[in-house]
């Protein structure tokens, strides 16, 4: 009987020991997994910090630059050339180009007055419309960038709308021969540029290019005479 009791006690002890061992093993396993989880969380936070640092460096390193005049000139192949006897041939002087906004390097790309003026000069020159003299020009062109609607960074596609007013005045009698508001839009996708700031710049340039192209098309369809007598 005594032996039986001892055997039973030994069995219970062994069982308890086993349970304790298995429990501690489980505990260790849990601790290990918690440790692994903790490490992975800290790694994740480190990863987030790294991404933020890279983004900050990206922002600081790649400052916003203004639109490039050369990229805002419409392609010459788009329009038929002006005939030599056209009233507008070598007859337009740019008297004013305004409404633009200077680009703040810390903010987004814009189109400034200087860039707009240079773009118009290049565009008119390309079609043989630019006058060699600003004083003796038969027509004066005033261009005003009313609005450049830019995205606020809510999407991947950058859609920019430009609203421009063109006013063409005949110098001889100060008669306005053309006065209109032209709106044009341009979409720049991730395929055009991966970097958002560059994508926006491309959209700005594309929108202005489309706007000037529309103006030149309107101008081509007009029948303008050199002087009021003609």
């Amino acid at each position, binding site marked *: 009987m005594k032996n039986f009791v001892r055997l039973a006690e030994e069995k219970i002890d062994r069982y308890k020991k086993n349970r304790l061992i298995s429990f501690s093993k489980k505990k260790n396993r849990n601790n290990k997994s918690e440790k692994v989880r903790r490490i992975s969380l800290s790694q994740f936070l480190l990863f987030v910090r790294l991404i933020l640092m890279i983004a900050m460096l990206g922002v600081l390193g790649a400052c916003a630059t203004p639109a490039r005049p050369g990229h805002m000139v419409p392609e010459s192949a788009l329009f038929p050339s002006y005939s030599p006897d056209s009233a507008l041939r070598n007859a337009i002087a740019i008297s004013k180009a305004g409404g633009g906004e200077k680009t703040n390097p810390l903010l987004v790309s814009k189109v400034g007055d200087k860039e707009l003026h240079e773009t118009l000069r290049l565009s008119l020159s390309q079609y043989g419309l630019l006058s060699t003299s600003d004083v003796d020009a038969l027509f004066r062109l005033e261009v005003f960038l009313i609005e450049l609607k830019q995205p606020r960074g809510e*999407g991947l*596609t950058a859609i920019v709308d430009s609203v421009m007013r063109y006013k063409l005045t005949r110098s001889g009698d100060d008669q306005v021969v053309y*006065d209109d508001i032209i709106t044009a839009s341009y979409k720049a996708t991730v395929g055009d540029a991966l970097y958002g700031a560059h994508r926006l710049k491309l959209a700005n340039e594309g929108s202005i290019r489309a706007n000037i192209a529309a103006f030149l098309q309107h101008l081509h369809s007009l029948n303008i005479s050199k002087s009021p007598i003609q």
Partner: protein
Amino acid sequence: MPMRSLREVFMAERAMGATKGLIGCMIMLIILGLVGCARPTGYTKASSFLTGTKGYGYSDKRINGDEFSIVVLGNPSTSKARVAEIALLRAAHLTKEEGRTHFVIIKQKTETTERAVLISIPLWFGGLLVVVPVGEKTNREPMAILVIRLLPLQPAYPPDALNADEVIEHLAKHLE
């Protein structure tokens, strides 16, 4: 055994808390989304964002001398007629601000513009609420453009001239 059950209870409570948090955040996002889009744009100045881009509302520029341009951008819930009215009301206010009484409209235009917006869903990921973009949609927004000339103070005005006070009286009630 009791230790294990306690752990289970703790884990379950934690999961419940996370689920509650997630549901709360989703409800908040939905409410914010609805509040932000439901109302059409009112008579308000377009505020500039930190990035330098403009929000919804009116903005104006002096072209030269007495000529001004006014642009009104409305949110997708705003009609073209409403943005045109806001532009007209702004023209009237601008006239008064410049010490004049009458103005003429030189050019006017209303357009529908597009804005690409990301479609994103909130996901509970590793104990954090992460907003994951799943696509892109295009919102259509109305835009009104107005070019005006302020008339100098004179005893009689041309028939196409608009009286700023009359315009304000007609439009301010339902726009401001």
